[in-house]
């Protein structure tokens, strides 16, 4: 069955506001998580990753939070820009696997002018 899922299928935010995209996973054996951005007609693009021994990681304008207790992952985008409009997927990698990604269903982020 599906082990990674998303709380909301769509999210609309005003340009300049912060965005928070959430993801729930069910496999406690996952040890690596990645957020991907997918623009229309393109392949998934890496945004940020986090290992299971961390609870927070920051990049440029993005922060990923990992709560292993409730198996929850979030992506925070600061000062959202029109170019951030895309589908965002969380993906997990199971410990000991061949390191393939298991993707969630995706959240469509729309940035409003």
């Amino acid at each position, binding site marked *: 069955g599906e082990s990674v899922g998303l709380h909301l299928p769509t999210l609309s935010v005003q340009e300049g506001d912060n965005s928070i995209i959430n993801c729930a996973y069910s496999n406690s054996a996952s040890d690596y998580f990645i957020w991907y951005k997918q623009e229309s*007609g*393109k*392949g998934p693009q*890496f945004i940020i990753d986090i290992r299971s021994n961390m609870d927070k990681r920051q990049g440029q304008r993005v922060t990923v939070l990992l709560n292993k207790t409730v198996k929850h992952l979030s992506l925070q985008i600061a000062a959202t820009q029109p170019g951030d409009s895309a589908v965002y997927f969380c993906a997990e*990698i199971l410990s000991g696997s*061949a*390191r393939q*990604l298991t993707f969630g269903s995706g959240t469509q982020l729309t940035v409003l002018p």
Partner: protein
Amino acid sequence: EPEVTQTPSHQVTQMGQEVILRCVPISNHLYFYWYRQILGQKVEFLVSFYNNEISEKSEIFDDQFSVERPDGSNFTLKIRSTKLEDSAMYFCASSRDRGLEAFFGQGTRLTVV
């Protein structure tokens, strides 16, 4: 910046025909993957490939599918007898090491008619 390239970008084929989707992974990467995405759905893992052999495959990757690395640069996915339900975007990905981020190509849109 190095990237994964896929050809063709769009392939239309008749049901029952064989198709070969081609990928050139990033040159110093050792792990190769094929994923597919049916329109409007999440990205699904098909197969991973390392050291000239399949490391893991999903239930989707049945006997109709095969992968090959015929030379030092190409990585191919063959579907022997296409079905209508094989219509999807097929993404190739590569990574330098296990557990590191996978870089995705732009995808090949396969349409089976």
